[in-house]
């Protein structure tokens, strides 16, 4: 099997009885990401503004003229302090929220509402507790009206991809946090989206589980060739995963700077180069974090912490 040829297999793929390992999950025809004219970005945000009215009636600018181009197959990380609107940005791309002005193009076509070419993975996973693991993975395909046989085949394929084939009949509450996120990844991939929108998907997990999921995500990304926009507040995670890291400012969110990351893959969180890159990003981010802290300490206290790179 070629799935783990480039990466050390942390999890051996469980072989199910009656499912020949040799032909393996590869026997399923998996749609490749939609080919696009290389002149057009996969996702292009131009002059995105978002403002909303607070309860006291004042207008708050959350996103301020965001311009961003994402290439096909790129792994883009968006980093910023809490409250910079980075999660909202994903909702806009997903079509679950409407920007105040500006335009979002996917494959050159403006986004009008949700579409299964862009699937979100939420921090709180958003899996359906009333469905089993495989029913969750099937859900998007069922909505699309794909036949039962094909659904079952693809569900099996994607559950094996995230090493959860054995748990297909479990309910969500029976799984650990890391397993839930892997189901969420399988569910998202099963609709064969071109773009994965990941909203701090690993933030609520413990460090070891997060390490493993970084490896898995990197492997899945390189195998499936999807475009990923990954939002996080963790700069090391961003440096570990991204081809490029975009830094947003604190309220209103603007693009502050961009860091192309040309480190070889597979990477590891402990790699000194990853840590060094993370530090560079953090140096840029520090002002924004301090501004966000100041906003939280309203009584004139200025908590000027200079954070070290997260352990």
């Amino acid at each position: 099997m070629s799935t783990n040829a480039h990466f050390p297999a942390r999890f051996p793929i469980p072989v199910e009885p009656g499912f020949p390992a040799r032909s393996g999950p590869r026997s399923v025809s998996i749609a490749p990401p939609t080919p696009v004219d290389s002149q057009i970005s996969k996702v292009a945000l131009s002059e995105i503004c978002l403002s909303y009215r607070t309860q006291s009636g004042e207008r708050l600018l959350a996103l301020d003229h965001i311009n961003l181009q994402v290439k096909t197959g790129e792994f883009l990380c968006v980093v910023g302090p809490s409250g910079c609107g980075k999660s909202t940005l994903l909702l806009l791309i997903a079509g679950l929220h409407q920007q105040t002005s500006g335009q979002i193009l996917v494959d050159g076509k403006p986004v009008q509402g949700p579409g299964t070419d862009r699937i979100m993975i939420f921090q709180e996973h958003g899996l359906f507790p009333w469905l089993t693991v495989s029913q969750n993975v099937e859900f998007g395909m069922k909505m699309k009206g794909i036949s039962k046989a094909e659904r079952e085949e693809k569900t099996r394929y994607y559950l094996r991809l995230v090493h959860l084939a054995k748990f297909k009949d479990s309910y969500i509450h029976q799984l650990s946090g890391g397993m839930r996120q892997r189901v969420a990844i399988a569910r998202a991939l099963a609709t064969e989206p071109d773009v994965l929108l990941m909203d701090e998907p690993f933030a609520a997990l413990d460090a070891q589980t997060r390490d493993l999921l970084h490896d898995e995500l990197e492997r899945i990304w390189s195998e499936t060739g999807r475009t990923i926009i990954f939002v996080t507040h963790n700069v090391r995670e961003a440096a570990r995963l991204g081809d490029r890291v975009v830094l947003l400012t604190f309220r209103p969110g603007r693009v502050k700077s961009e860091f192309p990351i040309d480190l070889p893959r597979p990477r590891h969180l402990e790699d000194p180069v990853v840590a060094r890159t993370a530090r560079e990003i953090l140096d840029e981010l520090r002002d924004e974090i301090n501004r966000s802290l100041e906003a939280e300490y309203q009584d004139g206290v200025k908590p000027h912490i200079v954070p070290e790179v997260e352990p």
Partner: protein
Amino acid sequence: MKPGIKRVARFAIFYAALFGLWTLLAELKIWPPYLFPTPWGVGESLYAGFQDHTYWIAIRVSMERVLIGYGISVVLGMILGLGVASNKFLEETMGGLLVSLQSLPSICWWPLALLWFGLNQNAILFVVVMGSLLSVTLAMEDGRKQMPKIFGMAGRNLGAKGFKLFWYVMLPASLPFIVSGLKQGWAFAWRSLITAEMLYLSLGLGQVLMMGRDLNDMSAVIAVMILIIALGYIVDGVVFKGMERHLQNKWGLTTAT
């Protein structure tokens, strides 16, 4: 002793004592038997009632009515509740009206139903629907609001919209939050039905109950009361308890009840 056996023992002792007290009071003949029947008298009435099919027919007719009426309530109530929960205008206008209407005993709709539908089945159904519709509506509204927003977002993101979004996401997602309301709706439907049947001669359990009174047959009255309690309890204890347990197993939490 195991806790299970202990529970059964407590249960048995309680009902044996109740039965003994009843027998004692009846045997002391403080009141005449046509006012205070013996347990065997009631038992004989039950047997006779089932023997000549009166009770079977009454149970079938009543169950049919309550199922139709409750079914209408559930469908209408869910649509109404969702509408009120997701539309600010409806919430502000109809929300208050619904709450105030709930203070009206359902049998107050009876005169209106008689004039609208005449003395027939539809009038009874109307009262049953009015009895349970509001609690289902309010439960659905509440459930829709309590339901975590992420389910709706995830569902829309995965391509569900319109009826599919409602059927495959909103409804199952809100079920743990509305099951207690559905249960309450059932209890109201059952009560409304029996009340309406007592006011109108029409085969159901309510009518059989009134017949016992008309014939001065206290044993029959008690027998039918026991039937009404038992049926209500079976639906509540079997159907709704089963539903709650099923939800708990799936969601891995105690439901909102």
